[in-house]
């Protein structure tokens, strides 16, 4: 790789050991994928502070915090971070983590704050004003976020992990893969014959798209969709394809910014497969996603990725005047920015009066090992209903839960009656 003088100085350790290590990994990453150079990083979305608490022991967390403070380690680019941490303001018994674990997570948050990483703690930072623009070079964690950024916005990010932290620290990222025009072209065509009408249809379709595109560097282009895609539809699509697949972006002809026509995204890259999605295929995807063996549900999980204000308004209108059946947990996972607006508009009162919990920054399917060892939720819950494919995909693998995948209304009605019924 050809490095600038500044990049070489970082690599030689002139800016300190931590930044040197970050640059070493970024250079190795670039070399592995034949990057010719580094480019400036315009934004980074880092791992959840909760994942740090999961992956590192108490001593390491304490040492890192001290080290970051002492050495004044700061990010060089706009940096946010992903979900999840437990909602710190909600009654402790809802999520049920131990005090010592909460304390550990708070220290991980302190590390980020010290480094200048915004404590967004969300899988949907675009709900919080972290909205990149077309052509910006990003290093993002959270699979649904790099897909959203690449596909919906036309910003550019590879599949990022700790590389997001390293890019934030150096302000640089290796230019390969999704940063280059070639790899953004489609290699698979998905012709959608099925009628896509609802948000759950979008989820089922992109669950299939992920299954068709489960190899790194796959990029599908979808044709034949007549639905106007809302923010929530793109959120669902990004979460779904990122769960079942490996694609870092998708195109929708006439809908997403880089695919005004099919020809715009099929150029030099070889088309490896063409798939047709029939109404029957879509129905099979629905059947595949719902593996529950009983109609009796124990929990509803909404907000995977986090709930938007439009979704909060819909949830409010469904729950108005209703009461959730005793013993059933309803978690509405969101961000403080949305919860604040929901409170202002009176939605929060209605939702909480019905018996649901609106939780900031959390994620039922993360911190699973800790939830299993510290909380009663995983053992008491056997079957859940969710309106989000991402949750439907991962929850059974994480907890052995049975899943009902359905619309927001179907999920919330099931929380009121105790039984999931397909409308």
């Amino acid at each position, binding site marked *: 790789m050809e490095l600038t003088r500044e990049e070489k100085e970082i690599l030689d350790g002139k800016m300190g050991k931590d930044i040197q290590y970050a640059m070493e*990994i970024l250079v*190795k*990453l670039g070399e*592995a*994928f034949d990057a010719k150079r580094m480019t400036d990083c315009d934004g980074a979305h880092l*791992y959840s502070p909760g*994942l740090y608490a*999961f*992956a590192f022991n108490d001593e390491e967390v304490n040492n890192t915090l001290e080290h970051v403070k002492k050495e004044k380690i700061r990010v060089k680019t706009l940096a946010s971070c*992903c979900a999840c941490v437990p909602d710190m303001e909600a009654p402790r018994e809802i999520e049920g983590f131990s005090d010592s674990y909460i304390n550990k997570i708070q220290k991980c948050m302190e590390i980020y704050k010290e480094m200048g990483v915004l404590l967004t703690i969300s899988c949907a930072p675009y709900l919080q004003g972290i909205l990149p623009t077309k052509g910006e070079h990003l290093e*993002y*964690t*959270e*699979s649904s976020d*790099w897909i959203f950024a690449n596909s919906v916005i036309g910003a550019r990010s*590879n*599949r*990022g*992990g*700790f*590389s*997001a932290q390293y890019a934030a620290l150096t302000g640089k990222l290796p230019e390969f*893969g999704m940063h280059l025009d070639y790899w953004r072209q489609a290699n698979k065509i998905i012709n959608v014959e099925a009628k896509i009408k609802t948000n759950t249809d979008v989820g089922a379709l992109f669950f299939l798209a*992920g*299954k068709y595109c*489960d*190899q*790194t*560097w796959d990029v599908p282009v979808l044709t034949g969709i007549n639905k106007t895609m809302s923010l929530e539809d793109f959120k669902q699509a990004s979460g779904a394809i*990122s*769960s*079942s*697949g*490996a694609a870092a972006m998708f195109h929708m002809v006439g809908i997403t910014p880089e695919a005004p026509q099919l020809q715009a995204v099929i150029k030099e890259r070889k088309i490896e497969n063409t798939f047709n999605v029939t109404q029957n295929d879509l129905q099979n995807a629905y059947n*595949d996603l719902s*593996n529950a063996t009983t109609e009796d549900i124990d929990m509803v999980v909404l907000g995977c990725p986090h709930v938007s204000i439009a979704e909060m308004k819909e949830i409010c209108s469904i729950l108005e005047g209703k009461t959730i059946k005793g013993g059933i947990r309803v978690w509405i996972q969101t961000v403080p920015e949305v919860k604040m607006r929901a409170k202002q508009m009176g939605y929060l009162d209605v939702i909480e009066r019905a018996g649901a919990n609106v939780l900031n920054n959390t994620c039922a*399917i993360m911190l699973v*090992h800790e939830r299993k060892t510290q909380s009663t939720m995983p053992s008491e819950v056997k079957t859940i209903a969710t309106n989000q494919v991402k949750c439907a*995909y*991962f929850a*059974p*693998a*994480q907890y052995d839960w049975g899943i009902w995948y359905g619309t927001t209304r179907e999920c919330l009605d099931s929380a009121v009656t105790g039984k999931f019924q397909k409308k």
Partner: protein
Amino acid sequence: MGNLILKGKIGNKGYVEGEAFVVRQSFGFWGTVDQHRGVITDRWNEARGKSFIGKILVVPSTKGSSANWVMLRLCGRLRTNPKAILSNRGDPLIVGASIEIDIPYMYDFDKDLLSEIETGDFIKADGNNGVVEIVKK
């Protein structure tokens, strides 16, 4: 007849020998793996319930979450990681994790790995030279 030799790109260097564990469908190290047991938990994966600990993992591609990197690193800490990873397609997340836990990772081979390697084959994974030697079981 000599052993079959495959050539691939190097994601991370290193040399190990061991038994192949072939997973025919892509999976990710977060959400569909129990890192503490080194076991695949994806309900759509035929290898569900099986462990990759100490094996040479052969998989068409890795997929899913960004936490592939941190979770493979966690497997390294817990010593539940595969000894090496060989894929048809290279994933930046696995490059990063394999560098940090120091296991060989190779991809983009001259032949399809899944057609050439079966679970139980003895593999010499030479990440220093991008060469894999397969001794059929």
